[in-house]
Structure formats: structure tokens, C-alpha cells
């Protein structure tokens, strides 16, 4: 993306200071977004989120694997972000690698919870199949098709929506003979599948500092001007699930607690909107089948 001229930047910053951004939004307003469910039929669950021009696909694939060595009674949630070259020539080859890694880490921080699984976005214990031996691994992959700012927040929305759409096959452990281990029988009949509870899945609100103010849901142009940003994951209970500071400039500590409470407030509104959009997407899906 080309840079903006000094005049455009000054106009942009002026608008943010006056609480009237270039597209008419206030500093705390999110762009309108849409959610589509079940877009990748081969995945266990999937969603497409369009937030302004930012366009992402989130896919959840449930596969059997081994539980973490230190916590054999848990399942696993693995998160990754990839930026498709379709988003622009700057992302071809290895162009998007650094950004993808940064975003992937930020998602992990917000969704994976502590090492022992507490505070994770999904109930990891429920993913266990045979303690110490087999568990469900949920691979959550985000593919960015078009980037116009705020990919992280859009990804969180996408993962929450995709998880709500996820169906995990039922596993039966057959009795083994004598000392032999039992075999696993998979039943992927849609009616027999387990659903994933998304009540604890947080959303992320990224506040981007431009000049002396910070804004929510920055566009690509606004993001390019950021000095620093704070990404805050907020869940239904209003708890903070992960905080990531991005950007090279420092943030005054006195500003941080203010930013956190603003993020919580915006997060609460966003959660309600996202839940509503997911329900709508679900009913649309039902009426189609």
C-alpha cells in the first residue's frame, strides 16, 4: 500500500482529534461487519468475516492427536494466521510472514489460556478422548483474503463464529481384548456430533494510537500511522483474557488503564453484536439447507 502524503496524514490526525474520522466514524466506532458460516464444507467449522474491506476466512479442523505432555487430561487448541497473496503484491512470497507470526502469537495469547488450560477460549478438558493418549486437537486457521486494517479483531470474530459452527465427531472407545488397547470408532453423523461451547471465547479490541488519541478498528491507512497499539481480549464476563502491546513507540502507563477500560466497554458492545450476527448467520444457513 502506498504511503499517504504529509497533508493527508495531518488531515487524518486532525479528524481523529475531532472525533470524526475520514469515513465519518467516531474514535470508538467499529465498521459494519458481516458473518457467513460454513464456507469451507470440508472443515469441522468455518466462517467468513468482512469488516469493512478486511476479509478473512476462519477454519476449524478437529483432528485426533496426542495431549500436551504436562497436562494429559486436556485437548489442544492451535492457532495460526496466514495472509494470502490475494490481499496484494506486498504479501506475496514471504512478504506476509512477519505480520502473520505476530498476529498468530497475539491470538494464542488471547485464546490459549494458561499452560494448564485455565482461561482458555474453549473447554480443553472436554476435548480429551483417552487421557494421556488421545485427544481432539482443534486447528484454528485464519486466512486473510484482503487487508484493510484491524486483521486481529476480525480474526477473533472469525474464530468465534467458526467455533460456533464446529461439529466434532463422536468418539467411542471400544473395549480392548485383555491387555490390548481399545480401538477408536468415529461417528461423524451430524446429529451425533458434539458442538463447541463458545461462551468463553473472547473478542479482541485493538486500540491504535495515532497522534495523541487512540481509535478502535483502524483502517489500513490509519494503521499505517500508528505509533503504538494495544490489543485487548475481552470475554462475556468482562474479564481481560490477553493483552498485547504492538508498535515501537512507548505508551504512558497512566494511559494504559484508561485504554483497558475503553477496550472493555467497546468489547462488551462488540460481543453483543457478534452474537447477534452469528445467530443471524445460523438461521440463514438453516433456511438454505
Amino acid at each position: 500500500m502506498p504511503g499517504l502524503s504529509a497533508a493527508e496524514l495531518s488531515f487524518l490526525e486532525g479528524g481523529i482529534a475531532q472525533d470524526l474520522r475520514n469515513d465519518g466514524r467516531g474514535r470508538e466506532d467499529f465498521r459494519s461487519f458481516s458473518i457467513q458460516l460454513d464456507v469451507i464444507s470440508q472443515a469441522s467449522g468455518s466462517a467468513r468475516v468482512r469488516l469493512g474491506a478486511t476479509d478473512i476466512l476462519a477454519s476449524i479442523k478437529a483432528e485426533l492427536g496426542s495431549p500436551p505432555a504436562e497436562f494429559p487430561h486436556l485437548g489442544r487448541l492451535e492457532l495460526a494466521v496466514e495472509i494470502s497473496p490475494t490481499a496484494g503484491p506486498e504479501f506475496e512470497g514471504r512478504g506476509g510472514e512477519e505480520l502473520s507470526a505476530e498476529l498468530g502469537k497475539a491470538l494464542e495469547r488471547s485464546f490459549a489460556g494458561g499452560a494448564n488450560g485455565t482461561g482458555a477460549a474453549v473447554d480443553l478438558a472436554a476435548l480429551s478422548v483417552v487421557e494421556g493418549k488421545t485427544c481432539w486437537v482443534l486447528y484454528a486457521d485464519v486466512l486473510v483474503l484482503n487487508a484493510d486494517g484491524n486483521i486481529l479483531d476480525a480474526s477473533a470474530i472469525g474464530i468465534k463464529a467458526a467455533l460456533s459452527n464446529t461439529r466434532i465427531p463422536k468418539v467411542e472407545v471400544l473395549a480392548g481384548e485383555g491387555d490390548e488397547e481399545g480401538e477408536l470408532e468415529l461417528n461423524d453423523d451430524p446429529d451425533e456430533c458434539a458442538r463447541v461451547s463458545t461462551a468463553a471465547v473472547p473478542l479482541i479490541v485493538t486500540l491504535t494510537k495515532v497522534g495523541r488519541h487512540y481509535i478502535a478498528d483502524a483502517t489500513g491507512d490509519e494503521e499505517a500511522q500508528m505509533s503504538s497499539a494495544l490489543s485487548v481480549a475481552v470475554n462475556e464476563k468482562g474479564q481481560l483474557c490477553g493483552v498485547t502491546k504492538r508498535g515501537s513507540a512507548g505508551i504512558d502507563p497512566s494511559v494504559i488503564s484508561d485504554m483497558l477500560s475503553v477496550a472493555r466497554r467497546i468489547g462488551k458492545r462488540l460481543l453483543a453484536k457478534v452474537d447477534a450476527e452469528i445467530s443471524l448467520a445460523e438461521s440463514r444457513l438453516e433456511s438454505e439447507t
Partner: protein
Amino acid sequence: MEYVSPEGLRLDGRRPKEVRQLKCELAVLHRADGSAYLEMGNTKVLATVYGPHEVSQRSQSLHDRALVHCEYSMATFSTGERRRRPKGDRRSVELSLVIRQSMEAAILTHLLPRTQIDIYVQVLQADGGTRAACINAATLALADAGVPMRDLVASCAAGYLNGTPLLDLNYVEDSAGGPDLTVALLPKAEKVTLLQMDSKLPLDTFEAVLGLAMDGCKAIAAHMRQALLEHTRKQAVVRGPVRL
């Protein structure tokens, strides 16, 4: 394993000479100059075109024609088993080359000297015939971008199982170990721009399978043409009359 039933039906209910259901959508991503989304059965592919634009690396600029650049990517969730694909692995590099060469055969590059055309193809779901789907999607995206071409490039794969030539193999049929022939065709000129086959096939059967693949290409070209005409019509109607 029976891939064609005695009644002549394949595993997914198709007849041997039937192409899977095609779905095309144009101009799906607005930042790109041209884009297209294509479904061939369960294979889903997205293609975007940036350009023609100024060459990004001056040293690579060609004084008499356009520089065509192509990158193929496969999503980690696109195959049955989720797999982290390293960038630049052999298969991606080969496919990027194959797609670029197929499109270069059609683009009138001499009309666009000192420019660069970037084609990005992203596989979202792979269920056999990804190569062909990528070429078809790239054609649509280039047409959407208004890049001048000598013809559409239509691509289709065909195989031979249970003694029957089969058109447009899906993943299961593809993995059966029989021959897999992918063809890309310039339909008006009836010129083949891509021909790849693996496994082995007696010569007369080869000709039958090749003929079938070419028929598939023509059917796909007709479908793409309809989609492009309809899309152009809508754009023109919405834009309204321009008094010259």
C-alpha cells in the same frame, strides 16, 4: 474398488463424461484490479489479478512486453488433513510456473510493454482438479481486470478407471492410481497450452482421454463465457449510458 457402477454411475452420481457443478463469481475482492471465485464441485479456488501496473523492480522491466508473475498458494485447511505448507515448496513452485505459462500463452503481452501483471491463486478447498480450477479462475480474474487476451484459457482433467474414460476427477478418483491428464485449451483456436499426465496409458486410450478432456475444456469455456457476459452486462447497465 468400483469407480463406475454397472449402470454407468460414478461415486458421486455423475456420468463418465460429466463435469462437476461449476460456480463462478466475478469481482469478489475490490482492491484487486480483477478477481474471481470458482467452484468445480468441492474444489474451491480464488484468483486475483493486480495490474497491468508499473514494474516493481526496474531491472526486470521488459521493453517490448508485459512481465507476468504468478503465485499459487494452498490454504492449510484446504485438504482433508490439515497441513502446514511451507512457502515455496516444490509443488507450489511448479504450479505457479504452470499457471503462469498457461496464462502467458493467452495474454497479449506485446500490447503492454514495461508493465507487470501479478496473478495470485489461492486454493481454499481441494477435491481433485485443483490445477485446472486454478487456471480457470485465473482466466476469469484476468478478464475481469480487462487484460487483453487472444482467447479464454479453459482447463479440465480426465482419467481412466474401470476401463472407462472419466471427465473431471474428484479427489477420490484421482487417488485411485489411474492416469490423470490435465489439459488447458484456447477454445477458439483449439490450441492446447498445457498438457500434463502422470501414470501410464496405451496410445489409443490416451487419445480418447485427451479428446474427452478437450471436450470438458470447451464445456467449461462456454460456462465461463456466460458468466463473463452476464457480469459485464450488469456493470454496463448499472453504470448507465455515457453520452460520447
